[in-house]
């Protein structure tokens, strides 16, 4: 075995039990020995139990009980081991059932001799030994017999056990395969012994024999490689480590659980005692708790009531604010109306009896005697007026204070509350509330804020009014100046227009005079008629200019926009004609009544159309479109000119901004100012062809009835139109 372990051997010739053992470790059987018995080559051999032929007591294996039996060695395969299997099969346990079991540890011939000499009753030998000894003359024939012989075809030797494969040759796991093949080939082709001999234990080599019977024997006898493992604690542990540890853990857990349960049990018993004790106390505690809870409940209810009160206040404030908001966005009401409404709202909201709004005399600020206060607005019972004035004198409120000032009159049971309205950081008005002293409490923070908000609104209104007035004055002044200025500009332009007909008239008259001098009967009617036409034309032009220059105080009146537009276009007709620009105006046949300052609106249209003409190129069209909107009339002045640079759109309405070399650049600024005074905006927009200016005017139901002057103007206009068409 050492040699194998050291890999010194390549091949081993050994007994079949060892072959099986090696094969189980990876070796391979490459050939099995063949024996020949009377011309029968066989790869098998067997064992026999012999006794003397004349022993009549032993005929079967079971007859061996209580007899002495000998074998060569317990490890001998072709002998004891083969027979042991047969004994086991027959229910015999040799160590127990035999009288004596001897191992000679020597050759089997000694066993034969011992049987012959009655030293033992039976012996175990390999098959063929008797025949060999008989053949070689060492044994007389028929002196020995084989017990329970078996017969098998092709195996002529006497035997008692099953047949097992002969010895063989094996290679080892590390042996080179090529070498193995070479060796096997050599073995198989080795010259065989001649078959004439009746018996020969070695005949030659053949293919490996089936080893299953050998394995069966080894397994049955528990011999290597089927030796059962030794049962040791370590081996057990190795085999069943997991199961064992699981069991151990379970046991541990169980033990612990039991311990725990018992402890809990003890505790439970204790708790039970405690519980009983507590049960007694509980009643008292419940009573106490209930008392506390009811106290908390009371507090909560109070809290809720307070919260509801706050909510109510807030709701009221919200309503007041809502009312305030609605008043402030009411576009139809004037500022004074709004203030009246606001004061009423405040009076109701603050639950006062009356409200008064007083001017603070700016002549002597700080002194608030009645003579310096002027009633301006009030709400509520007017009978409070004297009372308020009386109390005001007593209260002597500080006008410069921004706080809400309070005054109580215990005798009359009245309360006065005052807040100063500051305009431009100067005290301007007192807002005074008067009410029952006992009925009314101090104002809440929210109400105070609300009141402040109201006073600020009133103040901003006053400021705005002042600004508005200033702006109105300014606009009127600027309007007047620019009207004159525009008239001047126009006059320059119109000089040419007036000169033309005057020149023509003079020419006709001179021509006629010369003709008369030459011949007193000359026909000069044509010349004189034409000169008259020309003079009429000139006078119309002057009339139109005068109409325009006549400045009126800005006033809101209703007038027919279409008439105004046509009047303006009349003035500009010649200018447009000279530039070969067509003017398109809405028809005069329909009335378009609007509200506004007629003169100012005409001026705007004039300016816009003049601009449009200047922006237009020869052959262009300038049209004025009038469209109806709800309660409004929209006016569009559209040209086909160069349009306005996007970057200039923002600044085009600015004063002194001009793209022209002439003029002051005031035109559009004034137009915008006028249109804004009419609560509209002047918008400019580039369109596909050029640009358009748009504004709206409030619509009026009826135009003012035509006055004499109006009729005159319009007929003159008609004249001038017909004149124009004739001349053109």
């Amino acid at each position, binding site marked *: 075995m050492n040699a194998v372990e050291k890999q010194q051997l390549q091949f081993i010739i050994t007994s079949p039990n060892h072959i099986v053992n090696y094969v189980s470790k990876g070796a391979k059987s490459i050939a099995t020995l063949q024996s020949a018995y009377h011309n029968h080559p066989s790869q098998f051999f067997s064992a026999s139990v012999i006794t003397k032929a004349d022993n009549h007591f032993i005929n079967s294996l079971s007859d061996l009980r209580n007899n002495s039996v000998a074998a060569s060695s317990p490890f001998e395969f072709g002998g004891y081991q083969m027979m042991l299997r047969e004994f086991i099969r027959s229910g015999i346990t040799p160590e127990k059932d035999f009288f004596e079991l001897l191992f000679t540890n020597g050759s089997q011939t000694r066993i034969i001799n011992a049987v012959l000499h009655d030293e033992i009753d039976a012996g175990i030998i390999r098959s063929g030994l008797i025949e060999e000894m008989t053949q070689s003359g060492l044994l007389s024939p028929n002196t020995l017999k084989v017990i329970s012989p078996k017969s098998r075809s092709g195996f002529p030797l006497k035997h008692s056990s099953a047949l097992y494969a002969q010895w063989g040759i094996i290679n080892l796991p590390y042996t080179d395969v090529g070498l193995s093949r070479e060796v096997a080939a050599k073995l198989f082709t080795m010259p065989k012994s001649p078959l004439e001999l009746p018996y020969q234990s070695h005949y030659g080599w053949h293919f490996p024999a089936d080893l299953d019977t050998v394995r069966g024997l080894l397994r049955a006898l528990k011999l290597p490689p089927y030796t059962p493992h030794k049962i040791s604690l370590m081996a057990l542990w190795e085999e069943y480590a997991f199961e064992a540890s699981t069991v151990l853990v379970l046991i541990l857990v169980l033990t612990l659980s039991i311990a725990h349960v018992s402890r809990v049990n003890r505790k439970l018993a204790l708790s039970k005692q405690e519980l009983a004790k507590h049960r007694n106390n509980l009643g008292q505690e419940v009573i106490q708790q209930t008392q506390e809870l009811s106290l908390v409940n009371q507090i909560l209810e109070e809290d809720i009531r307070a919260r509801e009160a706050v909510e109510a206040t807030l709701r009221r404030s919200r309503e007041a604010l809502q009312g305030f908001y609605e008043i402030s966005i009411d576009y139809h009401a004037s500022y004074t109306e709004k203030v009246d409404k606001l004061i009423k709202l405040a009076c109701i909201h603050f639950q006062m009896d009356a409200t008064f709004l007083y001017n603070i005399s700016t002549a002597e600020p700080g002194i608030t005697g009645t003579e310096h206060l002027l009633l301006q607005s009030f709400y509520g019972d007017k009978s409070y007026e004297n009372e308020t004035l009386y109390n005001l004198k007593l209260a002597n409120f500080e006008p410069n204070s921004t706080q809400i000032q309070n005054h109580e009159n215990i005798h009359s049971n009245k309360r006065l509350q005052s807040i100063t309205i500051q305009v431009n950081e100067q005290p301007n008005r007192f807002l005074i509330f008067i009410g029952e002293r006992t009925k009314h409490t101090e104002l809440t923070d929210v109400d105070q804020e609300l009141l402040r908000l109201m006073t600020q609104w009133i103040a901003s209104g006053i400021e705005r009014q002042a600004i508005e007035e200033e702006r109105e004055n300014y606009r009127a002044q600027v309007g007047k100046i620019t009207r004159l200025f525009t008239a001047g500009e126009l006059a*320059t332009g119109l*000089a*040419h227009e007036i*000169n*033309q*007909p*005057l*020149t*023509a*008239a*003079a*020419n*006709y008259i*001179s*021509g*006629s*005079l*010369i*003709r008369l001098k*030459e011949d007193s009967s000359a026909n000069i009617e*044509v*010349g004189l008629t*034409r*000169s008259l*036409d*020309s003079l009429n*034309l000139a006078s119309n032009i002057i009339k139109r200019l005068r109409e325009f220059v006549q400045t009126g105080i800005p006033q809101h009146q209703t007038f027919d926009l279409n008439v105004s537009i046509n009047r303006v276009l009349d003035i500009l007709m010649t200018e447009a004609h*000279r*530039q*070969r620009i067509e003017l398109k105006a809405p028809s005069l046949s329909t009335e378009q009544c609007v509200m506004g300052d007629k003169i100012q609106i005409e001026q705007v249209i004039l300016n816009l159309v003049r601009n449009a003409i200047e922006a237009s190129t*020869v052959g262009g069209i300038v049209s004025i479109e009038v469209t109806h909107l709800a309660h409004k009339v929209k006016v569009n002045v559209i040209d086909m000119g160069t349009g306005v640079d996007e970057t200039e759109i923002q600044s085009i309405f600015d004063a002194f901004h001009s793209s022209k070399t002439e003029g002051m650049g005031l035109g559009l600024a004034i137009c915008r100012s006028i249109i804004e005074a009419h609560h509209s905006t002047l918008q400019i927009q580039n369109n596909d062809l050029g640009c358009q200016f748009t504004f709206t005017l409030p619509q009026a139901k009826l135009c003012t009835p035509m006055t004499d002057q109006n009729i005159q103007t319009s007929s003159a206009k008609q004249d001038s139109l017909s004149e124009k068409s004739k*001349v053109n």
Partner: protein
Amino acid sequence: MKTCVYIVDDDKQVRESLEWLLESIQLPTKLFENGQDFLDNFSAGLPGCVILDVRMPGMNGMDLHKSIKAIDEHFPVIIVTGHADVPMALRAMKEGAFDFIEKPYNDQHLLERIQVAIHQYDDLQKKQSKGQALNSLFNQLSKREEQVLSEVLQGVPNKLIAKNLCISIKTVEAHRSNLMTKLEVKTITELVRLSIEAGRCPNR
């Protein structure tokens, strides 16, 4: 070609009233609505004058004036305007306008100026045509005849002329006779006057 007053004005009234006025003094007129129409019908040397308005659509009076001067620098142009200013008037006169009249004008004054313009232009044209005739007379002279004429006009006697020109007295006399025939003069006084008119007289 008959003398004619051309009127260019975009205003029909003005055009026709001028026509009425000029017809009263038997001056024929031609009316044009704009400058281009006039230019299409205008050529150098037409007798008459033109009255323009400055302010006209398309080509204005000042531009039209320039165009006319480019064709005939002597043709009289009277510019009338309703809104004259000094720089415009100065420009017009510098560019050779005959007159610059502001509307409304005195008809009599306008008629006078028109007549003066027509006559001056007529005289100029006549003078120019006379000068041309003289030139053609003098151009007939041969080189030798010119040399002899030059000596004669300087009062050099025939003898000295012959010596100066290295020719015989007889030849000088023949040249004198020939040039006087060519210039259609009979006396030496006539010859001198004609030469002065033609600008041939040498400066002393």
